[in-house]
């Protein structure tokens, strides 16, 4: 008997080289794991499919998405306007001015956005008489306005740094060349420096918008019903975990769309730089 098995062993041809390295196996296992997770999620969502849930809460999700986008859009625009003087102060040679701008940027970049939002939302109560005197109390009583206030100040600090970095990335020779052509400072800034700086700044600006969209989720904690707020409300009412999964999918789609949009714009506006 043992002879027969020995003969089998000897006669068998060597196994063909299959080219399945350890890395390849690991890679396929991991991708398989992701696919399994994706299928699991789809199965879960199908199993948890509930027309009533949708009828009742889908409009809320859409309005929440609108609030999130509105909040981010307003904050980004206000922040962009506010960031110009801050970036200017940050680059100025006056030590008091640049020191003040540095402190502003350091504070808003060094503390969590959540703490800043709390500071505004809960903290304004400490100044109620003063605010009532100026007539701003009505503005700060709304959580949404507080969020816009905090987010604008926060993103202004980040955008000021982006702007400063972009402007400083333009070589000095560009300024000198413009000066030798007789352009004054404002013209140089507008026609020569900014177009070059904005190419550098595009990607950081895109990242900042994405960070704001993700960061805006925290307004749910101060009772603003943005996408995250609606999600928490839905979960609190139904204890249905799919409410969180839908929110994750929506956020993921927005962020990915934005990221690819920024990449597409960057490819378009740097065509002249590729050789």
């Amino acid at each position: 008997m043992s002879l027969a098995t020995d003969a089998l062993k000897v006669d068998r041809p060597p196994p063909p080289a299959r080219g399945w390295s350890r890395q390849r196996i690991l890679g396929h296992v991991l991708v398989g794991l992701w696919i399994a997770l994706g299928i699991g999620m789809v199965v879960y969502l199908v199993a948890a499919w509930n027309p009533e849930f949708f009828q009742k809460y889908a409009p809320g999700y859409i309005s929440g998405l609108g609030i999130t986008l509105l909040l981010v859009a307003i904050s980004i625009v206000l922040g962009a306007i506010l960031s110009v003087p801050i970036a200017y102060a940050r680059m100025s040679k006056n030590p008091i001015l640049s020191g003040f701008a540095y402190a502003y940027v350091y504070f808003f970049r060094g503390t969590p956005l959540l703490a800043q939002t709390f500071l505004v939302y809960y903290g304004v109560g400490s100044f109620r008489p003063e605010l009532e005197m100026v007539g701003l109390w009505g503005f700060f009583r709304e959580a949404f306005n507080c969020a816009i206030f905090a987010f604008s100040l926060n993103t202004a600090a980040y955008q000021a740094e982006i702007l400063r970095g972009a402007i400083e990335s333009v070589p000095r020779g560009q300024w000198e060349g413009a000066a030798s052509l007789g352009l004054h400072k404002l013209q140089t800034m507008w026609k020569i420096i900014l177009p070059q700086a904005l190419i550098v700044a595009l990607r950081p600006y895109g990242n900042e918008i994405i960070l704001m969209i993700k960061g805006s989720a925290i307004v749910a904690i101060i009772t603003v019903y943005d996408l995250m707020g609606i999600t928490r409300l839905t979960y609190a009412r139904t204890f249905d975990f799919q409410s969180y999964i839908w929110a994750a999918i929506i956020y993921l789609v927005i962020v990915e769309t934005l990221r690819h949009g920024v990449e597409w714009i960057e490819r378009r506006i740097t065509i002249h730089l590729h050789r």
Partner: protein
Amino acid sequence: MQSALTLLSWGPEGWLDDIAAGVFVTVCLALATLPFGLTLGFFVALAKQSEEPSLRLAGNIYTTIFRGIPELLTLFLIFFGIPLILQYFVRLVSPGTSADVNSFVAGMIALCFIFSSYSSEVFLSAFRAIPKGQYEGGYSVGLSSGQTMRLIVLPQLIRIALPGLANLWLILLKDTALVSAVGLNEILRQSGVAARVTKHAFLFYGFAGLIYLLLAIVSSFGINAIERAVGGSEVKR
């Protein structure tokens, strides 16, 4: 009306001891997340720079997911989702028992995912900064691929990645504030309790902000010391 100094003093009348406990929890959370986040991020980066397309795909899916979902939502997904999954399995073994996850652990897991997805990008760009000749040199003197990675590539990688990782550490410190939303008694939550009890919201939240700034300043001293210790970001020749 109590003065700000009494409110911020140590002891039964002041709140400094409570906030200090919060600082301890925050620092613990960040420090506990760091090693796991770094290790996971390193392996994800390794997958993303490999020549095997399926590994790269797996790594990229990981980064896309955890960089695309808001940090707070990741935290909630884990805080509410893990008990659901755990419960499902626990019920298979012994029906009737319930499983729960501690907010510290949930925060740690969520922050670890977020930190690793960002740090994998930092490691990836550091990998790209290391010339191919370094690997070839390693193989030609007879080192295995693991040895090449550990003895030749990793020491250079750390130097190049350090500034980016330092930045991520500061972000991690700030992100710990989010865990207050699921009930972890860290700086922001302790300050919030103090603010609610004493009705001095601006004082306490402002103080919390200053503590975060202080932590950032202390960290940057530590980071500078580490950067000096590893000999700057430039490869010496």
